[in-house]
């Protein structure tokens, strides 16, 4: 039973090998002819807005191609420190950006291009009656936060500490997105994420605002790196993000001006 | 305590349709070409294969089939089986292999082991083997353990499927003698599948020949030799057998005519003992009426004679002395003259 199946697999295995072999020369030629795209590393919470920014940038400057890569900020830092080639780094907090600056990979001084604030999220209709940060200390609530090393998690703990609320989260989630989905699925009763995340997921979760006095405002720094394939285009993209057009797009997605 | 079996089943190309009756203390040998249904027969008797129609009854108890369609599972039949391969369990010691049957019958471990040791001694195994794993045993020893294992479960019917097949020639004679003794002591009916004439002669009271799923002949070894009913039977007992049409003392075998002495007319089988076949390098003169030219195809030595396989118009076997082999230079092959006296040919109506 296994033998004929095995030989079929072995034979079939040649097909992708041949296909790749055939594609290799053409792929190399294309790379040599067109300019190499600038590579942008951006925090997970910037996913939607950076896609919109890149689209607008491509419409205005089709001759300057860029590539986007999203992950949690600490992960991006790790990748950069281990030598991943990138032209632009947009982080979700200053301290992570400083780790990249210390490693000597930045080509300029990082500048904050947007700010974000926190909000509580609950299930639609807020069935557990969460009204303020203090409610998150209730023992009958299952609360999830981002891990303490994820910017959103650090900000959330900062805000809770300032409000004097002691929370024992049921899980240290790796990103804001997984906090939102745990709340949306009902596994958790409440979580703390960025305002922009709650806006994006408004059909799945309900946002409970945190008053400005108790809120934490996090800044997103952006920097050009010296390790990427096309620094010139990278610099142009950073300029675009900080331009009036870029800022209006950021605003549309709920980010605050720097 | 007797076994009555009337079995019909289809399995692949095989259409098995056979009836057997074996009395307590009697050994029936099943012989037949490969694929004739011998092993399937044993499997039905053991309950490892269900029959389609018919009935298996042991000591008045219906095990399979019958008007009410019963089926007794193998573990409740009390049928001991020795398979072609010993099939000892490699994870158990020799003693625990044999003690398995008694354990299944609810005996305490220690008592089952004592019983197993007794049976192992009775099949001629030395003590040092008892606590070893079956992997260290020779083929003959393993088959002895398998026999002890089957007997230790105190079955009421014993089935042996070519018990000597997996044993090399040196151990075969001793094991055959042991089987004979142990079978003789066993009180229930015994059915043995055999592949060789010696085994059948040594073990059987009666021989049943299965061909294509049917019993073509059943009787003592003497009955089979006296009047083999098919070429296979004749070959099994070492005779030449031809079938053809007899008219006026001549049997037409399609190409070769044999002169015979018989009043029979119509389809017949003709048997002739290989020793009654004479060979010559030149055409013989004189009395024999059946003379033709054949080709030597091979030589098989037996203890005192040499069997010569002949081809050509008629395939047959001649048995000659080693001196004749040398004198006729049969080892060189080539053509020889074959002669048979009409009076040596036995003719039976078919």
């Amino acid at each position: 039973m296994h033998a004929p199946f095995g030989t079929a697999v072995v034979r079939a295995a040649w097909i992708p090998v041949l296909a790749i072999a055939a594609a290799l020369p053409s792929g190399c030629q294309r790379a040599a002819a067109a300019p190499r795209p600038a590579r942008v590393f951006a925090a997970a919470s910037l996913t939607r807005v950076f896609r919109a920014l890149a689209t607008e940038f491509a419409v205005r400057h089709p001759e300057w191609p860029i590539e986007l890569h999203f992950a949690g900020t600490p992960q991006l830092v790790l990748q950069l420190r281990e030598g991943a080639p990138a032209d632009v780094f947009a982080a979700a907090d200053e301290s992570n950006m400083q780790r990249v600056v210390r490693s000597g990979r930045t080509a300029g001084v990082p500048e904050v291009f947007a700010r974000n604030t926190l909000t509580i999220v609950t299930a639609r209709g807020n069935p557990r009656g969460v009204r303020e940060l203090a409610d998150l200390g209730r023992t009958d609530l299952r609360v999830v936060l981002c891990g303490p090393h994820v910017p959103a998690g650090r900000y959330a703990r900062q805000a809770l500490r300032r409000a004097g609320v002691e929370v024992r989260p049921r899980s240290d989630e790796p990103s804001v997105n997984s906090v939102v989905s745990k709340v949306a699925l009902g596994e958790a009763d409440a979580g703390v994420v960025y305002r922009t995340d709650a806006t994006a997921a408004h059909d799945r979760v309900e946002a409970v605002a945190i008053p400005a006095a108790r809120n934490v405002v996090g800044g997103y720094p952006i920097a050009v790196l010296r390790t990427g394939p096309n620094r010139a285009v990278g610099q142009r993209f950073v300029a675009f993000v900080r331009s009036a057009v870029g800022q209006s797009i950021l605003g549309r997605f709920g980010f605050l001006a720097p | 305590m007797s076994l009555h079996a009337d079995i019909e089943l289809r399995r692949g190309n095989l259409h098995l349709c056979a009836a057997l009756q074996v009395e307590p203390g009697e050994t029936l040998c099943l012989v037949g070409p490969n694929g004739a249904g011998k092993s399937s027969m044993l499997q039905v008797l053991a309950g490892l294969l269900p029959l389609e129609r018919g009935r298996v009854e042991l000591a008045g108890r219906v095990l399979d089939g019958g008007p009410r369609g019963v089926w007794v599972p193998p573990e409740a039949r009390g049928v001991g089986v020795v398979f072609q391969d010993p099939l000892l369990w490699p994870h158990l010691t020799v003693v625990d292999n044999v003690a398995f049957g008694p354990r299944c019958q609810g005996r305490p471990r220690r008592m089952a082991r004592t019983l197993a040791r007794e049976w192992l001694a009775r099949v001629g195994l030395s003590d040092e083997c008892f606590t070893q794993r079956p992997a260290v045993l020779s083929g003959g020893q393993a088959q002895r353990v398998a026999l002890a294992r089957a007997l230790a479960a105190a079955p009421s019917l014993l089935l042996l499927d070519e018990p000597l097949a997996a044993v090399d020639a040196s151990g075969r004679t001793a094991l055959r003698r042991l089987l004979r003794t142990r079978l003789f002591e066993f009180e229930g009916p015994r059915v043995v599948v055999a592949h060789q004439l010696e085994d059948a002669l040594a073990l059987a009271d009666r021989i049943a020949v299965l061909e294509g799923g049917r019993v073509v002949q059943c009787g003592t070894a003497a009955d089979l030799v006296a009047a083999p009913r098919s070429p296979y039977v004749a070959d099994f007992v070492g005779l030449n057998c031809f079938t053809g049409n007899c008219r006026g003392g001549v049997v037409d075998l399609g190409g070769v005519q044999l002169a015979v002495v018989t009043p029979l007319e119509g389809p017949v089988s003709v048997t002739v003992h290989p020793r009654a076949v004479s060979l010559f390098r030149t055409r013989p003169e004189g009395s024999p009426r059946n003379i033709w030219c054949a080709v030597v195809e091979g030589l098989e030595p037996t203890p005192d004679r040499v069997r010569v396989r002949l081809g050509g118009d008629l395939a047959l076997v001649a048995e000659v002395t080693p001196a004749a082999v040398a004198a006729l230079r049969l080892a060189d092959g080539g053509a020889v003259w074959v002669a048979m006296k009409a009076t040596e040919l036995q003719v039976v109506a078919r």
Partner: protein
Amino acid sequence: MSPVRRPLPGVLALVVALGVVFFLLPLVALCLRTPVARLGELLGSGELRDALWLSLLCSLGAASASLLLGVPLALWLARSGSRWCVPVRVLVTLPMVLPPVVAGVAMLLAFGRNGMVGAWLLQFGVALPFTTAGVVVAATYVALPFFVVTLEGGLRALDRRHEDAAATLGAGPWRVLCTVTVPMVGPSLRAGLLAAWARALGEFGATITFAGNLAGETRTLPLAVYVALEAEPDAAIVLSLVLVALSAGVLFALRRQWYPGP
């Protein structure tokens, strides 16, 4: 068997050497980057102890659950000859190819608080997400296929006449299963358990998605490595080394039982 060992063709030997280096390099890199000065401090941390203990507990739990669920499944797949075997086999082996994160999401939808089974379980006060039991369930889901596939192969290779022999000696189906079938497929059973345990020990995606990530409760070694990687790469390297040492140690200690030969 043969007394003369014929060497492999030269090209193959070269590829073998390349393959060995390929497996060796990541380990060498881990060792070279080990912060020797901080080793004692990092190895003694409570975080590591918790994660190690939890990983052992959960991987052994998943291996046990695989044994309980997997033996009947493998028997049925190898023996029943049912026409449902093909779809069931696809179903059982799916977690082997599915990205673990997808497995985690699917488990949330099934066993989560609002999930199909989870909502019902909740009535009895049983909730799997964010609990150690949830980690075991997630690990079992991804580990079980390895056990079933290995055992089914062993069962198919088993000469069933050994079971026939037992039946003719008076052993009923249960007795045949326990005293003949299972012991005779022992090597496959142990190899399958080892594969399942190893898969459960390394499980990450389904765990973090389904069971969450809380120190002492659901943060197993792989999750601890992930967390540490973001905060303190030195600690991540030490945790990884512990995971490597643990797995290699078990594989080495059990080498005779699982694989014959030198």
